[in-house]
Each structure stands twice: as C-alpha cells, then as structure tokens.
C-alpha cells in the first residue's frame, strides 16, 4: 500500500514510554495521522472553508476533488483510482467524514463535501471505546431535537440493549447526557453543528450500523506476541535451505506414493453416495417429519441414541457396514446382545474394554489395563481372545517394558475388530434371525400427525410403565404387572443383559455401583460406553473365575446374583457345550429354580457328585460345612440338571426339605470361599457373618437383611472382590428367598444336627417359597418393562406373548416358565401386604432411590427418551 512511502514521517526520537503505549496500535495509524496533519496545514494543506451548498453554507468543509488532488500531488500518485482508495481508507478510519451523507463513508472525486475530524475524536485513539460513553452519546441525542438528532433503528436497538445491560449505571449516564446537552446549548451554533457532526461521525466509525465493519478494531495481541511472530518469521527465513530440503523430501515421498486409479476411487465414492442416499435427510424426506418444519419432537424421540425400538431406516443402515452398526449405541447394544446369546461376545467385549481404556481416566489406567490383560489376554485367561502370535507378542512386549498406556492393547483390539468382529461376527449378525426380527419390528414412522400423536401417547405409556416398575414402587409393580408367565424367559434375561449395555436409569437402581456413571451419562446420553463396562466385565470375570475354580460357584457380585440368577438359567439349559457358563451359573438356578424345583436332590446327590467340587470340600474347614457344601454343589448341579432335562417338578412336601438346605449350603460355601478365593482381590470389608460364632449368627438373624444390603453396596462400589460377592451372594440368595427364609437357613448352618435343620426348614418352607416369588417376579417384571428387549414389540402392551426369538430357547425356558407360573399362582394367594414387607429391605438397602427418580426426569425432560 501507499502508506509505506510515508516512512519518513515517523517520529524521529520517540520516547520509549510513548512507544510502549502506541506500539499496540498498528503503525499505519501513525502514518495516516501524520498525513492528516499535513493535510490540515493552513498553507499547504487541503483548502478548508465554508462551502455554499444551495442556500445553506456549510462551515469548515472541503470538497472531494480537493483531497484527491492534494493526495496525488503530495504522494506523487499517478492514478486517481489509487488516490481515491487511499482517501477512502482515511475516511473509513474516521479522519474525515462526509458532511451530508451519514450512511456511506466513502470519498467521491467530485464536489461532495467532507470535514476533518478533530484529533480528539480520531477513532484510532480509542479502539476500545467504553460502551458507557456510547450510551451517553445515544442518550444525549434522545434529549435533543428529534428531527436533527433522531436515532437510527440500529442505534435505538443498541440504546435499549445498553439500557438493559447498564441499568445500574443508567442514572449516571442520563445525568451525564443532561449535562452535556446543557453545555452544548451554551455554544455557538456553528461550533455546535461541527462538533455534533464530528461526534456522530466518530461513533459511526466505532459502532457502525450492522452490515458494515469497524476497521479500527485491534487484535488483542500483546507486544510480545508481535515480537514472537516476527521471531518465528525470521527463524523461518534463515532456514530457507532446510525448508527447501523439507519440501524436497515431502515431494519425494509424495511421488513414490502408490495411487489407485481415479476411476476406481470415484466409483467407490459414487457407490458410497448411493448406498447412503437413503440416509441423507437432505435427499430423502425425514421420517416421521422434520422437527424443524413440523414442530414435532417425535423425530428426536425415536432417533435417540439409545432406543428400544429403532426406526427401520436405522436398522437398515446397520447393514451397510460394521462402522454404521457400532457407532450407533443402539446398534452396539444389539450386536452385543446377539453375540452374548451366541456365546462369542468376548471379542466385542474386549474391543469395548480397550476403547474404554483409551478414554478412561488416567488414574484407573493401570488397574484397568491389568484387569483387561488378566481377563482376555493372559494365557488361560477366562475369556481369552483369539489373536495371532505376532499381535500377542507385540502387546506383551508393551506390557513388559512399558507401563500400560492407553494404546497398549490397540494392536490386539485392531486385530479383533478387523479380523474377528468385522469378518465373522458382523456378517453373522446381519444374517441372523435377530437382525431380521429387528428389521421386521422396527418402527416405521408415518408422516401423519395423528398417528404420531398416537404413537407418542403410546411411548409415554410405555415410559410410565417403566417408571412404575422401578424398585421404589415395587409393591405397586408387583400387583400391577402380571408376570408374563409364558413369555420366553430367555427373552427376559436377554433383556436384563442388555440392560447393562444400556445403563438405563432403572438398571442403575440395581447397579448401585454404576449409578453415578449412568447419571452422568444421562446428560447427553450420547456416550454409552463410559462406565457401564465395569459391572459387565466384572460379572464375566466372576463367572469365568468360577469356571477356573470349578467349585466356587458363589463369588458373584450381589447385583449379579440378583440379575443373573434367572438370567443364566436358560443359558445353562440351552447349551451343554458351553461348560464354563454352566458351571458358572450353577448356583443361579439353584436359588431361583431350586427353591421350587430342587426335587430328589438327596437321593441323586451321591450319584452325580461331580469331581470339580472336591477342592472346595477340601478347603473348607469344618466338617458339617464340608458336608453341606458338597451337597449344595450337588444340589445345585442337580437342579441345573433337572432344568436341563426340563422335567417339571412339582413341589411336594418331601421335596420341600431341599430348598432350605440349599441355602444353608450356600452359606457354608461362602465361608469356604472366604478362606480360599482371596487371590488378587483388594482388601475386603469383613463379611458380615462369616467367621462369627453360631450364637452370634443367630443373633444376627433379624438384622440380616440390612447387613447384606450394606455388603452388596460395598461390593458395588469396589467392583471386584469375589469374596464380598460371594458373601453377599449368599445373603442375596437368601434374600432372594427373602428374609424369613434366611433365618432358618442360618440356623441350619449353625446346628450340626441335620434332622433338626430339615425340621426347621420344613417349618419355614411355605414362607420361603412364597417369599421367593415376589422378588423373582418383580425382578422379571422390571427387566421386561424397562429394557424392552429389542425384539419384542409386545412390550408396550405387556402382553405375555412369546417373542419370536425365544424360539431357540423356548423349549428350555418352558419348564422354568411353568415353574414361574406356579409361583405366580401361589404368589397370588399371598396377601400383597406381605409382599411389600418382603421387599422393603431391598428398597432400603438400595441407596439410589432418589437418584433414580431424578434420573428418569432429566432423561425425559431432555427429550432423549
């Protein structure tokens, strides 16, 4: 720009302090100001005088062509266009301004009139003018002649804005405005005219009308920033050769790059576009309707990141690629559920766990990495994943030589993802029945307001139901929701499984441990893989550990036992092949089903005594316990067998002996476990009743439920700890069979007399039986209603239809279901008052109750559900 020519105008010896202050202003200001000063020189400057325009005379003004001419002469500019540009810049910076036209700050090469701005009002002096001053200026103008000084629209707007913002200062501002108006009245008319115009022009530059920009804004960079920037540039200049070398290198590598043919690349682009055409909301009308156009929030509801029934389009999209599936939280949930059902979900769990590790907090990095390694990678790990030698070695090397980092497992995860998940699991999922049912049941939103409303109310109904089924309102739920007796149990349990992936509020009630996490999650509900892995991992660690220790079927976390008890039952019966799971879940049927179905246990026991149980016996200290322990093993084994063979056992008086004994044995094994399974677990809170003498235990009988509650809570918070798990499991199993059942069980344990035990058991039997039901049923109700299993459309009406997917497991779950049915019938005879009494302790122990309520609220208010 021309300004460079003016360097000789720089002040010769600037005072350092002065320089300090003015340095922040661009140098061009100084150049312009010097030029303006020259312009105003009375002798050699631009001729300024009173100009006559029609009948009025305009004081202290100059014509456009004068200033252009002066500039061309002074700076020896040949081209008038350049001079006009320069004049325009000066004008835009507010050094002079058009007298007549307030809108346009530009200079024309004609007789139009301009006036110099007084240096006091040079906008470059005050680039950051206080808005109080602006407010005074505006307020002043409102006090004066409306025709002359009336405010423009944008000024009026900003005045109102300022009045609002500066309300506390407004008295001061209006006072100042009054004062200034008063003073200006005393001035001469010509002076007044000029200063008014100058002031107005000043603000016109600093606070331009919308659409035009303020050119005197300065960046908030400090002095050292300027230096730093210059420094960088200098360094770069000196390294020219290095720069060039770098460029040469860059070009060389670019040259040797392998390139695919453009046609190929373009084809894949085109096919991608075509594949996703259907999913581009700009190309295809939105379903059900674009929320912006219809003002209908339905779109947000049915497309929430986690939803029970995804839309058809969404399900279809999952089939395009694995990424489309796993990037969608709902899709991830579905495939995990599917793989879990197929017993090959260790891969996806590993992959998720690695992802979790990558994003998890640094503080937990080490423990998480270790846990991950133990579970999935170490030789003979419970869930050993199948990766090739090389990847394994790479991971192990990293583990050995480095502290575990976020990316330690990345190669392995990558391998699992590309080789196993993508090539094997994903195609199977897409071909599976489950996917097909998902697709068949998917929502097909219709673009009709009425139907939508219906659907909404439908949804709302579902929501209501789910909220009524949350633990706090158990009694109601127990009465209201009839257990879907003939609904495939497998379905329900699968739903329960999914619940973990979902980490919904209701689930968080059960998982007191992860309630915090889930709460946080609820905020946006967008990142489903935050804290929810922990319980899931834990659970499998436990179950697998069980397989390892072969007899220690008790070390399961309390919430698991609650959840898993019924859940694993079908799996047990379903596949004999997956022995790990069967062993792991032995104790589960034994508590739920055993209470009813454990039939001829004593007689069968000696025959079926499985060798793996022996270690437990050996380790247990006291003889009676050993006895009972082994018998439990048998018992539970037996029970599982009965369920596998799907014999429906009706509870006869003779058989009634067994349930209490089962609970006893569990207790005893708990003791064993305590001695045994301490392997690598963190310090344990003392199990409430483990080593206490029999008398004490008897004393403890009444407070039992509460202690067990606390125990489970602890387990929840510290996640691992098999022993607590086992301890509380025992309590929870007994809790399962509910408080009354527990007390006889306890006594049985303390007394060596087996007969006596059985007698007591006899006495308490009915209670035990009856009390089991509400719990079980409630649990199932809850899982069903909350987690609306992906496949079941029948959730909304809670109609007891067997969902299609249950077909695989239906044969197995039937006996269970029948049992359940019997339970129900018995249950129905019970007065509901007792039910609620039974459930109360569970309520109390679960500290998440208020949280859960708020959770549900925020969730729905945010519009994600």
């Amino acid at each position, binding site marked *: 720009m021309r300004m460079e020519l003016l360097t000789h105008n720089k002040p010769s010896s600037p005072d350092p302090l002065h320089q300090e202050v003015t340095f922040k202003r661009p140098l061009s200001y100084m150049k312009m100001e010097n030029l303006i000063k020259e312009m105003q020189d009375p002798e050699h400057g631009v001729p300024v005088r009173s100009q006559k325009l029609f009948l009025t005379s305009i004081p202290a003004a100059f014509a456009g062509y004068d200033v252009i001419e002066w500039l061309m002469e002074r700076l020896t500019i040949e081209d008038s266009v350049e001079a006009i540009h320069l004049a325009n810049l000066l004008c835009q910076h507010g050094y002079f301004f058009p007298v007549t036209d307030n809108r346009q700050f530009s200079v024309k090469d004609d007789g139009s009139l301009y006036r110099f701005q007084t240096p006091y009002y040079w906008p470059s002096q005050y680039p950051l003018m206080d808005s109080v001053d602006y407010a005074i200026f505006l307020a002043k103008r409102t006090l004066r002649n409306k025709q002359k000084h009336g405010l423009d629209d944008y000024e009026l707007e900003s005045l109102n804005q300022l009045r609002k913002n500066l309300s506390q200062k407004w008295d001061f501002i209006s006072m100042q405005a009054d004062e200034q108006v008063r003073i200006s009245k005393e001035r001469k008319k010509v002076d007044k005219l000029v200063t008014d115009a100058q002031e107005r022009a000043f603000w016109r530059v600093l606070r331009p009308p*919308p659409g035009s920009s303020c050119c005197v804004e300065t*960046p*908030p960079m400090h002095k050292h920033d300027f230096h730093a*920037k210059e420094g960088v540039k200098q360094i770069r200049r000196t390294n020219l050769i290095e720069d060039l070398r770098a460029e040469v290198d860059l070009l060389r590598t670019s040259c040797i790059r392998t390139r695919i043919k453009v046609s190929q690349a*373009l084809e894949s682009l085109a096919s991608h576009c075509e594949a996703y055409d259907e999913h*581009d909301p700009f190309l295809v009308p939105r379903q059900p309707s674009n929320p*912006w156009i219809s003002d209908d929030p339905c779109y947000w509801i049915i497309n929430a990141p986690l939803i029970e029934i995804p839309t058809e389009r969404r399900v279809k999209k999952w089939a395009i690629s694995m990424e489309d599936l796993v990037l969608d939280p709902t899709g991830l949930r579905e495939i995990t559920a599917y793989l879990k059902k197929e017993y090959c979900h260790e891969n996806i769990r590993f992959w998720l766990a690695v992802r979790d590790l990558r994003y998890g907090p640094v503080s937990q990095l080490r423990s998480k990495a270790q846990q991950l390694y133990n579970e999935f990678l170490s030789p003979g790990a419970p869930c050993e994943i199948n990766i090739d030698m090389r990847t394994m070695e790479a991971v192990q090397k990293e583990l050995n030589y480095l502290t575990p980092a976020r990316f330690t497992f990345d190669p392995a995860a990558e391998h699992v993802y590309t080789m196993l998940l993508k090539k094997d699991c994903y195609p199977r999922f897409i071909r599976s029945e489950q996917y097909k049912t998902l697709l068949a049941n998917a929502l097909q939103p219709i673009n009709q307001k009425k139907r939508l409303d219906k659907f909404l109310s439908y949804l709302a109904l579902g929501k209501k139901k789910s909220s009524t089924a949350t633990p706090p309102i158990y009694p109601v739920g127990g009465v209201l929701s009839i257990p879907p007796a003939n609904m495939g149990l497998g379905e329900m349990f699968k739903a329960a499984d999914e619940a973990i992936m979902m980490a919904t509020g209701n689930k968080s009630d059960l998982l007191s441990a992860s309630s915090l996490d889930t709460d946080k999650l609820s*905020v*946006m509900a967008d990142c489903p893989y935050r804290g929810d892995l922990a319980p899931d991992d834990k659970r499998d660690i436990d179950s697998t550990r069980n397989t390892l220790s072969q007899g220690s079927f008790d070390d399961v976390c309390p919430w698991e036992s609650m959840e898993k008890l019924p859940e694993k039952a079908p799996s047990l019966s379903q596949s004999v092949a997956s022995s790990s799971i069967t062993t792991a879940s032995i104790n589960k049927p034994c508590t739920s089903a055993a209470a009813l179905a454990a039939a001829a246990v004593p007689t069968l026991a000696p025959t079926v005594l499985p060798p793996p149980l022996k270690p437990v016996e050996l380790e247990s200290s006291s003889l009676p316990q050993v006895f009972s322990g082994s018998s439990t093993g048998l018992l539970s084994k037996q029970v599982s067998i009965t369920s596998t063979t799907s014999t429906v056992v009706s509870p006869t008086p003779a058989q009634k002996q067994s349930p209490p004994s089962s609970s006893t044995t569990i207790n005893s094994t708990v003791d064993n476990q305590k001695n045994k399974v301490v392997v690598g677990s963190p310090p344990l809170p003392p199990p409430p009743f483990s080593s206490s003498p029999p008398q004490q235990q008897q004393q403890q009988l009444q407070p039992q439920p509460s202690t067990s509650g606390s125990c489970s809570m602890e387990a929840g918070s510290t996640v691992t700890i098999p022993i607590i798990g086992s301890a509380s499991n025992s309590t929870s199993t007994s809790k399962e069979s509910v408080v009354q059942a527990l007390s006889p069980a306890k006594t049985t344990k303390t007394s060596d007399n087996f007969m006596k035990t059985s007698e007591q058991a006899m006495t308490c039997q009915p209670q035990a039986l009856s009390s089991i039901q509400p719990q079980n049923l409630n649990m199932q109700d809850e899982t069903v209603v909350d987690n609306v299993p992906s496949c079941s459309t029948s959730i909304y009406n809670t109609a007891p239809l067997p969902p299609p997917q249950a077909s695989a497991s239906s044969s197995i779950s039937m006996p269970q279901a029948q049992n359940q049915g019997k339970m129900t019938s018995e249950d129905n005879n019970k007065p509901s008052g007792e039910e609620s009494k039974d459930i109360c302790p569970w309520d109390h122990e679960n500290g998440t109750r208020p949280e859960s309520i708020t959770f549900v609220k925020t969730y729905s208010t945010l519009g994600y559900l």
Partner: protein
Amino acid sequence: MGPKEDPAVTGLKKEIESLKQTLKAAQEAAADSTLENVCSGLNEVPRLRLQTKRMLKGHIHKVNSVHFAGDSRHLVSGSLDGKLIIWDTWTGNKVQIIPLRSSWVMTTAFSQSGNFVASGGMDNMATVYDLNNRDSSGVAKITRELAGYDGFLSCCRFVSDQKLVTGSGDMKICLWDLSNGKRIGEWFGHAGDVVSMSLKPDDSENVFVTGSVDQSAKLWDLREKAAVQTFWGHSADVNSVCFHPSSLAFCSASEDKTARLFDLRSDQQVSQYVNPGGGGGGSVENSTGGFTSSGLSKSGRYLFAGCDDSNIHMWDTLKGIHTGTLGGHENRVTSISVADNGIALASCSWDQNIRVWVC
C-alpha cells in the same frame, strides 16, 4: 535484486520443480477417468429446497464460528461480541451464554458427547468449557486454558471428551490431553497458518485433514510424526476442509473461489466446483467471492460452501453441477456446520445471525 542466491538453494529449487513435474505425471498416470465419466450414469439428485427454519439472533457482532454437537440439535456459536452461545437449534432457545475472556474468537468446537465446548482465537489460547459444571451465576466453568501458541488459534476439534486437537496461526497442530491439560504432541508441516481441520469420520481418533494458508491441505495421522499426505491444487488459502462421510475423500473450500474434492487413495484432486453465477459464466476469475467454509451432506452427495458473497452455494458432488444458492445472510458467511445426522445445516455470518437450514 537482493542477496545472491546460494547455489545450494537454486539446486534445491530446481529439484523441487522437477519433483513437482514427476508428481504431476504420476497423478496423471493414475487419472484414467474423470468424475463426469464415472458418474454420468447416476441418477439426478432431487434439487434441495432448503429453507431457513430458525434464525438464531442474539449475537451483537460478527459471528465467526458454529459447530453442531453430536446430538444434531445443540449448536455452539462464537462471536466477536465476546460470547459463546449454546443454542437448542430446534426450539431456537439459547441454552447457555458463555462470556469469553477475549472477544477475539475465531473458532469453536462442540464435543461429540455435548459435554464440552472449546473456543479460541486471537488470544492465542484454546479454552475448554464444561457445560455441565456451572458456577454460581450459571455460567459454564472453564476446565482448561491451553496456552503455548505463537499465533492465533484458528481451528479446533474434539477427538473425544479427553482430547482436543487444534490448528493455529503458528503453523502447528497440537494435541491436548484435557484430563490433565498437558500437550500430548505437536506437529509441523504447513508453511502457513493452519485454518481449518476435519476429523476422519471412521477413524476420528487419529486421522484428520487440515487446510492451510499455504494453499495446501494435509492429511495427518496422530501416530505418525509428519503429515501423511499433502494435497496441492488450490491457488489461494484453503479456508475450509471437510471430510467426505465415506472417509475416502475430503473437500476443500478456498479463497481462490473454488471448492475441490480430493481423493485420498488416488492422492489427487478429482473434482472442482465453481460458482457459475455472478456473470462469470463458470470461469473462476469472475465468480463472486472466495469460499470461507464447507460442509457435506450425510451421504456426501451435496457440497455446501459458505461464500464471501453472503450466499451458501450447493453442488452435486458427483455430477459437479452447481445446484443453487442459499441466500439470506446479509454479509460474508463465515462458517457452516452440517449436523451429525445430516438433518440440518447451520450457517453464521458477519450479519450477526445464525441460520438453521432444513428441508
């Protein structure tokens, strides 16, 4: 003129020239077809009828940047009035207003989860706000102030809630760990200000593309020390880059009044989009203004580019046809953002407004 050039420098310059020739030849060798040929058989896409469905008013100065959250509904905007505003674009309400320490904001980013927003500008700093953690006056708290830049911050994106990647006027790319506020790494490569970046959709943790004032765009992998790939072609600042949803390509918008599509695997430009309006008759020189921002529709079929001429231009990416403009803004469109699920487009302008376009 000037000091005499070092023979080493001249040698290197010659080498660069010859390398450029070979590079060009290699690219041409791979270019066995053109977009028109490949896509001639494709169906026409419906003409978009996007309308401004929400006009988000509230800023009292130029709005410089908008970015959608992962829920496709919340939006952050940053303006020279020194405020970040979090909008619910559907209701049109302001969810939060965050006053900034420095009003010179140039870029904003919303984390995918919606928990954090980041902003930065001429304060040479990236500032991260936690939207869920508010102080007594209800303003989101600053969780991190990431300093250490020698130039303005021109672009930033959340890799995850824990990581932020930034590009700045000092030509570098920084990766920050937000959990401890430490810099994980710095990457150099551009010879000019980095002004724009876009994360790769299918590998957003590691790979992204940047556009720079040095007229090139570069592909980066955070696991590598240097840029993985460089794309030349533009003849002026690359103001904006945007990854194609297929992750196989990206498009760029430039000051040179063109937008281009670059393919990663064939390592070259595959298409160029110009604004035929403005009396230019399709020629670049006469079209109205440089492009400031770009975005692609969910399928990648449509390209949107915000322009100096206060319009948003649209093209069918495959056919290369200019399909129209979205008019409404009254000044330069500074930034556009396509919602994650592709349902809406937000644009902001120097006219102090934000518009949400849907169809």
